């Protein structure tokens, strides 16, 4: 049963995979880099 649990755990990776997530993630990434740049 443990092995089955581990297998189902691995099957849940990657945690999220969608175009929308990539867009949001990169948007947030760029925003933060912009703040850092402006602060500099």
């Amino acid at each position, binding site marked *: 049963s443990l092995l089955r649990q581990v297998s189902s755990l691995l099957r849940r990776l990657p945690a*999220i995979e969608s175009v929308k997530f990539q867009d949001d993630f990169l948007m947030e990434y760029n925003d933060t880099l912009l703040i850092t740049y402006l602060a500099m």
Partner: protein
Amino acid sequence: DLDSIYVYDEAAQSQVQQDRPWSQDPNYFKRVKVSALALLKMVVHARSGGTIEVMGLMQGKIDGDAFIVMDAFALPVEGTETRVNAQADAYEYMVEYSQTNKQAGRLENVVGWYHSHPGYGCWLSGIDVSTQMLNQQYQEPFLAIVIDPTRTVSAGKVEIGAFRTYPEGHIPPDEPVSEYQTIPLNKIEDFGVHCKQYYALDVTYFKSSLDCHLLDLLWNKYWVNTLSSSPLLANRDYVAGQISDLAEKLEQAENQLSHSRMGSFLVAPQRKKEEESQVAKITRDSLKITIEQVHGLMSQVIKDILFNSVHQ
């Protein structure tokens, strides 16, 4: 001995009430020890208020020059910076609560009040100072605690300050520089005018053996919260507010600088120093905001590598 602090010695407390050592020395109280329970209750209550200031009372006792805060309870009022002495609405509640407590065997008296400053730091405003002075006049020993729930989330540690006011007209000795904190432009006036009327006490925490056990259990789950939280997401509004405040301060500094540039050869070195310190403060604020943002981004990138890079 971890739990000995929880024992309430009624005789000793009444003795302290009679001696009133604080009446001789305005700086008598120097330390505050807050129990884990009281801290949690105050922070949870402050966060529940969102952007509205909330307030409550603290129960506890005196130990030498220290306040020992054992417990806290919310008052059914919303303290706001424009409301004078909001707790007046709750006097009846306070009296009833204290009496019921004593009947239930909780002997600690009310030793102070706490309220929240969501997003603008831990200090006493003009209204807070007058409320605290009133309390110190009639309800000694009385402590004022301020909590900033918004900064608590963004800084990842509890933003809390404990204060006592000086008597009317008292000229305090030169203050040791307290930890720097950003004061929003729309509050700077209020902060500046009254900051000499009170002083900060040193805050430490304590917990019982049961608290240790419970917090250890919670600690086992704490790593889940750390991995699944996004400071960048949770604090968007607050960061936006901070950046807009920063922009206003920059504009103000720029205007002043441009004025002085006209007569730059006239400006006194003192004035120049002052402007530099103002711009230096703004730089510091922007540094703080940026570092928190970069920390938030780092955690997002680590999470992305940890949870999104493994493919079937």
